[in-house]
């Protein structure tokens, strides 16, 4: 796989990797893609693709709050990058 393509995928997945890692990554991706392309041996015209892992459908519930969870929300805050006045604080977007 071309480095240009890898860079594009890194951009899409919001991830950086070291330049020296790209060669091995490119080789690995090539070998995996060549392995999975054996699916082309199977005729799949007119076959409806699967979605998800079960045949259940339309499982819905009323969207109502169950209970207040002040204790949990406190722990959630402890897991944040930074907190300011009860809000998550993040670096500027632009």
């Amino acid at each position, binding site marked *: 796989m071309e480095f240009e393509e890898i860079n594009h995928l890194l951009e899409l997945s919001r*991830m950086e990797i070291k330049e020296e890692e790209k060669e091995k990554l490119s080789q690995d991706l090539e070998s995996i893609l060549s392995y999975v392309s054996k*699916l*082309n041996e199977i005729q799949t015209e007119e076959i409806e*693709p699967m979605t998800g892992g079960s045949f259940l459908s339309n*499982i819905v519930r009323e969207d109502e709050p169950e209970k207040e969870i002040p204790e949990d929300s406190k722990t959630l805050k402890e897991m944040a990058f930074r907190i300011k006045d009860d809000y998550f604080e993040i*670096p500027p977007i632009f």
Partner: protein
Amino acid sequence: MIFEIHQKLINKEITATQLVGDYFKEIDKKDGEIKAFLTLNKEKALKEAEQVDKKIAKNETIDILEGIPYAVKDNILTKGIKTTAGSKMLENYFPPFDATVIEKLKRKGAIILGKTNLDEFAMGSSTENSGYFTTRNPNDLERVPGGSSGGSAATVKSQMAVFALGSDTGGSIRQPAAFCGVVGFKPTYGAVSRFGLIAMASSLDVIGPLTLTVEDAQIVFEAIAGKDINDSTSFEVKKEKFQKKPEETVIGVPKEFFVKGLDKEIEEIISKAIQKIKANNFKVEEISLPLSPYSLACYYIIMPAEVSANLARYDGIRYSPRSDFQNQNLDSLNLRDLYFKTRGEKFGREVRKRIILGTYVLSRGYYEAFYKKAQKVRRLIIKEWEETFKKVDFVLTPTTPTLPFFLGEKTEDPISMYLSDIFTVSANISGLPAINLRGGFSKNNLPVGLQIIANRNSDFQLLEFSKTIETILK
């Protein structure tokens, strides 16, 4: 084993406190070498054991799992106990709630000893991809315990826990169970709630038990199974027992699983096992599953696609990965840099590879050729299994193509590592229940696993049947 310990507890031959203490002694003695645990829960465990002892002293009835010490794969959320998924991304993550399976076991009074090592985010077949350290196989410390539930399998084998929970996305319970020589049960997709399981590939992930006996697997499965309001793919599994006589039971052995690449010793041991099963009047038939050799290719498209979506949540803002940015003036940064740097730094190599692969197969221009193609093949594979179970009751295969391999043996070649899952992955693609049983031992005393696969939603029948096979192979 659980039943026997339970008897000892209620007959007051041993207290829960002693029991838990004994297990921590075993851990102290063995885990320095095996390295199965990432985190221990000693203080809380002993406190909980005291509570159980109080109940027993008052002659109150206790549940069969009450006071039983167990280990939990570290991708299952435990409230107040650090849960890392084997990743540096979650090195300081203390979950605010319990996974449904943990809540259920807590209600029954089972006691958590600690959290076990795994390949980062359950991606791997050897635990060598853990962000922390590699677990070793208790049968031979120079070999891998399998993965990704390698820590859980090793704790059960070396009796550092009575049972352990694992998760299985492509074989991650059964393959390490085979490598360590224990029972590993992957339930039907949805039979056990995934709520609180750190998601890898949501259409494939299942939680299940690793135990020393099939009976124990059944006790644990009964405790954790069931429909859960917090997991819309969960359902109430049928509780039918298996009642066919041996001469009415048809066991299919697919010829596609006995081909080049299968270790000769494993082939011999499985053939011997089949002979023993036949000698007990079961009908064994050769069958063909022509699509099964394509399951792994199908898996290596669908799984990374789901991984790339599921792991998008790790953005450096939530789940508390400590980074150099934490104390910087925020105005000198921007959000984009925080994403790129955190994800680049905190995810290990295999995780990054799968995210990139998943992003590729879902991206414009490749979606049809890869992702959609794989989803079509997935439907065909499911159909093939459905047809198979019209003709046979169970399917029997080897669990793994090779014996436990040496540490470092397969880390450089992704395909050879991925092939470890070639026999287990079909059950995930099709959502079927499957179990690893001890099939025998190789000449140099390494365990060989035997896999039995059953139809969707016949988990209890599979377990019942497996008890018979376990006895036959003893």
